[in-house]
């Protein structure tokens, strides 16, 4: 556990899962359910950018803009055209929301496979500079950017939830949706905002993480599960909890294969999920117990 390179790698993976978990948390606050389509959103951002650059020969930044716009559109469509009508008809039945989200997960995955192709593609490097030397390890530019963006995003979201009007509205809805609605607060608008911001965070995560291991149309499912687990491990108590959870899950993903073989992380992750779900579903940092 003294290899600096491994720690850097764990931090990179951890920040990625932390960002995904933060996106989960935002949508959980605003809409009261877990949007399992976040992993595929992140995949679309990463894969879409690369596909636009390689296949459509767009230059880098327009490709990034288009891919992020697609993700925002997907997030808005998820809420406006699918989740909201279904919840309105079923009176907020949880199973219906879960089924709808699973269908969206699968549809986005298959759609990406159909449009972008079913190959694994490399991620696009957004910045180019020499790797930073830390001891005898190197921090790659893509990793440095991911770490920096993670810090900025978390600080920005924390400030927004504390100080911003819509952010505070979101917290109010997260605390008590019915009361917020009775008070006449614009619940639906805040929900849409939560979906879009969650989608943006997921898009940033996917875009910045893609250079590490590449991205294929099936990456989204794994990312969905790891992001969810990061949120469950961290808890929903503070904005920072997802980051802690993400770093823990990321550490497992990096260190376990190093010591126990390449198939082990899947088993360890399953074990962690079972233990946390059974004994501490509120996570490490909790404000209250969600059941």
């Amino acid at each position, binding site marked *: 556990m003294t290899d600096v390179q491994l720690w850097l790698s764990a931090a990179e993976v951890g920040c990625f899962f932390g960002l995904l978990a933060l996106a989960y948390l935002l949508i959980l606050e605003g809409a009261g359910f877990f949007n399992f389509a976040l992993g595929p959103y992140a995949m679309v951002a990463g894969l879409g950018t690369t596909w636009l650059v390689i296949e459509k020969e767009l230059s880098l930044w327009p490709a990034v803009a288009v891919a992020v716009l697609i993700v925002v559109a997907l997030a808005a469509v998820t809420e406006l055209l699918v989740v909201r009508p279904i919840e309105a008809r079923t009176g907020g039945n949880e199973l219906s929301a879960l089924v709808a989200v699973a269908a969206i997960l699968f549809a986005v995955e298959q759609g990406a496979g159909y449009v972008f192709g079913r190959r694994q593609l490399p991620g696009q490097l957004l910045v180019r500079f020499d790797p930073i030397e830390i001891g005898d390890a190197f921090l790659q530019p893509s990793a440095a950017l991911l770490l920096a963006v993670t810090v900025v995003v978390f600080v920005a979201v924390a400030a927004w939830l504390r100080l911003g009007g819509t952010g505070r509205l979101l917290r109010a809805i997260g605390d008590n949706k019915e009361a917020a609605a009775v008070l006449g607060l614009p619940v639906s608008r805040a929900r849409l905002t939560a979906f879009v911001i969650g989608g943006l965070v997921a898009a940033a995560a996917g875009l910045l993480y893609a250079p590490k291991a590449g991205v294929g149309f099936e990456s989204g499912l794994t990312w969905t599960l790891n992001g969810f687990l990061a949120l469950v491990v961290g808890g929903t108590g503070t904005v920072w909890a997802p980051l802690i959870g993400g770093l823990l899950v990321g550490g497992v993903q990096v260190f376990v294969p190093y010591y126990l073989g390449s198939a082990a992380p899947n088993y360890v992750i*399953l074990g962690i999920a079972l233990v946390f779900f059974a004994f501490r579903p509120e996570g490490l940092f909790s404000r209250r117990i969600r059941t």
Partner: protein
Amino acid sequence: MTAVTPEVGGTAGGSSAGGPAAGPPGTRGTGVRVWPPLGLAAVVAALLLVWVGSNGYRQDLGVLAATYALIALGMYVPFVMAGSLSLAYSAYAGIGAYAVGIVSRDTGWPLWVGWLAAPLVSAALAVVLGLATRRLSGFYLGAVTLLFATAFETWLVDADGITDGSRGIGGIRNLSVFGWSPDRSQQLIMATVLVLAVAFALDRLRQSPWGVLVRTMREVPAVVEATGVRVPVLNLVALGIGAGIASLGGCLFASFVRGVTPETFTVNIVFLAIFMPLIGGVGTPWGAVVGALVVVELTLNFPAFSDSGTLVLSLGVLVILLVAPRGLLGYLDALRNRLAAGPLTGLLPRSSPGSSSPAGRSSDG
């Protein structure tokens, strides 16, 4: 219990006054309602068997449809009846297929041993996964079962000594029943009979007191808990039954194709298994069978969709969820009722016995 449940079921049905599909499910046991679905399904199945004939490709399609139908029927019990969505169905089917493969490779026992063991193993696993999340929201069960499904896929490749790794197990012995080895056509007929039997049994189970109880639990768990039934236990039983049935699908596939690899049942199957009951209609287990036929047709037998079959399917399911939540059979049923009711009453919203239920409602009505 028997005296109470129709009452409870009726209350649950009545609580959805907003939905056109509301109606008490207490019309069971009339006999008239029991046989037409089975008879109709038998006729359709016989026609399909005639269409298949001795064409090898069509036989493969037929067995795949039967496999999908069993997985979808397995999904039906916890998902549609009890309202918990378990996403480890690829693993349950995989357990079935590998059980048959391992029995054939390592022992001299008949393959039926695998058929008997796999449902038990799958049901036990489903119960363990359900136990860990029994007091949590359905999203946790979904996540832990999906994690299990992906870990199981990795394990199939990784555990070389047990599963023969990525090569999989081939050369599975032919099925034999007391020395008689059925050929492929006969096996397909047996598979069809199995699907019909399971669907019929589930249809009966759904309308039994236990079925009414489970469906009531899905809508108003507090009421069921108050009658002294442990809701989490009931849920676990439903999860176990479903996993066992899905596992039979895997056994069937491996016995017919006489081989299995880690790619035979991937996580994609899980999503297809959610879609099948929704496409066919959640009001009756027969919907799951219809859904399986539609899925096989769209993904494999329809040239225009060879690349995009699964995409078309998932978009189609979103549309079904939004505009036709009772699926194909529910739609046909409504159409039939409307025609039978004559021009005036046909315009009124009607409750249709085949598809009205607490189980059908939270995704319709």
